């Protein structure tokens, strides 16, 4: 690539991720999948779902950060993803105001 085209691409902040990083993430994802499967054989009561979801969230974060290059992206893109997560949390938390308090009855 000539210097000139590199200059025009500077704006897009293209970052090349090395294959070892991809491999490490891939292995981590496989290990976490194995962990999810393994832990499903142990009964942890209410924590069954909590732990499975926590591992799933961690895996999703790895994919978004490294496979989807968010870790190397501009703050604007990070903010964009954060907006999506924030909206999702709004959906969950405000819906929960209904579900946790239905048993409270009238007041």
């Amino acid at each position, binding site marked *: 690539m000539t210097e000139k085209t590199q200059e025009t691409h500077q704006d897009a902040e293209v970052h090349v991720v090395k294959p070892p990083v991809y491999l490490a993430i891939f292995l981590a994802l496989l290990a976490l999948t194995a962990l999810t499967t393994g832990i499903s054989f142990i009964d942890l009561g209410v924590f069954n779902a909590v732990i499975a979801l926590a591992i799933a969230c961690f895996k999703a974060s790895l994919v978004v950060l490294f496979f989807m290059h968010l870790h190397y992206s501009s703050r604007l893109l990070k903010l964009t993803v954060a907006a999506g997560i924030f909206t999702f949390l709004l959906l969950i938390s405000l819906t929960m*105001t209904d579900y*946790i308090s239905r048993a409270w009855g009238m007041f």
Partner: protein
Amino acid sequence: MSTIVSLPDQATAKLPAKSFLNQEYGLKSWLLTGDHKRIAILYLISISFFFVIGGVLAGLIRLELLTPPSDLMATDTYNKVFSMHGIIMIFLFLVPSVPATIGNFLIPLMVGARDLAFPKINLLSWYLYVAGGIFVLSAMVLGGVDTGWTFTTPLSTHYLNTHVVTAAMGIFLAGFSSIFTGLNFIVTVHRMRCPGMTWFRLPLFVWGHYATSIIMILGTPVLAITLVLVALERTMSIGVFDPTKGGDPLLFQHLFWFYSHPAVYIMILPGMAVISEVISTFSRKRVFGYTAVAFSSVAIAVFGFLVWEHHMFIMGVSQYSALVFSLMTMLVAVPSAIKIFNWSMTLYKGSITFETPMLYAFGFLGLFTIGGLTGIFLATLGMDIHLTETYFIVAHFHFVMVGGMLMAYLAGVHFWWPKMTGRMYPEAISKTAAVITFIGFIVTFFPQFLLGYLGMPRRYAAYPADFQVLNVFSTAGASILGIGYLLPMLYLPWSLIYGKIAGNNPWQATGLEWQIQSPPLTENFAEIPIMDHEAYDYEWLANKTQHEVQTVG
């Protein structure tokens, strides 16, 4: 009456030799175009088509309600007619109305860009819209849907044997079309503003559309997922909304309204965006409190996500959460009121003229205010128990959606018609149409507030004879309103051939789009403009016009 319209000398005036309309000819040049202006025209034609269908269905509803018994159609058919009216008007008309037509046409022109950021995604968005429309029409032709536009569970999942999945599929596709429109607008506004076009020099039209796009992108996926869940529940009984399997039918409503309440702001914010431009131009003043109006759009977009449960107050949600949501619903009134007050302050001591777009804008101000204030009634918990599921609700959201949004849409179409086509619409008849629309609207929907307060429920084909007088008023009003909408559909196409040549800037408006030829070139600007003044700077315009060299021929 004074006017600010300044047209070129009609004896010598001609349309520009080259423009986006005559750059290429033939059907293929339209169906495969990447030009945002042509895609806007494609959208304009298709949403007008669906508006006519939705309007005819509305006419059928009003005809049925002319008399107390269910005599024009069977009650089942009535259910299908009002469901289809809602689905078509909301998903195929109101959601894409201003953004996909006027917004598509104007956002690049207003920020000084040659096109939207992703022209092909823009075209794809139109094809998805058409595909969605075909699905909805097939659901109607194959026998209809009678869930209401809200697809409420367990009715939609357990009790109905109509084409629920087909219609839901149509809405799913139309939803993606609106996500793509929003995506395009956000990227364009961030990345493609011309030199000197800072965020606070953007016209308020762009701010309004930016806020709308945020809701489109963050909200619509939730609707898509919810509709997929309904389809899975119907076909495979997965049990998410089924209490016998540990699900909850109200969960559907939480998910559905999480999109569909913000969707109300997808519909109204672009309307407000149009009104800011129109009011400023026809009172020759900068919009009062520009920054407040700009941020109130964003505030409405954010608050819009915090209020959805007010659609469910009487449906078994907890008292505590009803309290929380009632309070937050009141909060949305604040940014809406900021807008209304600031527009009124813009009018104060302005040089107001009464061209057609301004008449529609005045209609918007009055009707939207009534619609908004009756929303406060409904947000109040005790009042809501009396009024919900009655005609009061129907009147309330028609005041906001038809009285607000449709008025704003028509204001926008008339305001930018000269820019889109290069020709003026006929002024006298269009003013008449604006007044007829306003009168027809009031006569149609004001009686519905009274009907609802007196206790007439919505969604029934029959009603007690006591309610007939007000229903006759409403149906009579609907026929007046119908004429009001029919007139633009006749004179706007007429003006394409016989309208006066508009010239670049018939309204003497300040936006970048008015400084180029009408209709614009395919590449919009011969040279990318440099923005060296604030938005709505009428002194800048006067200076520019004074020193402009007039070239003839």
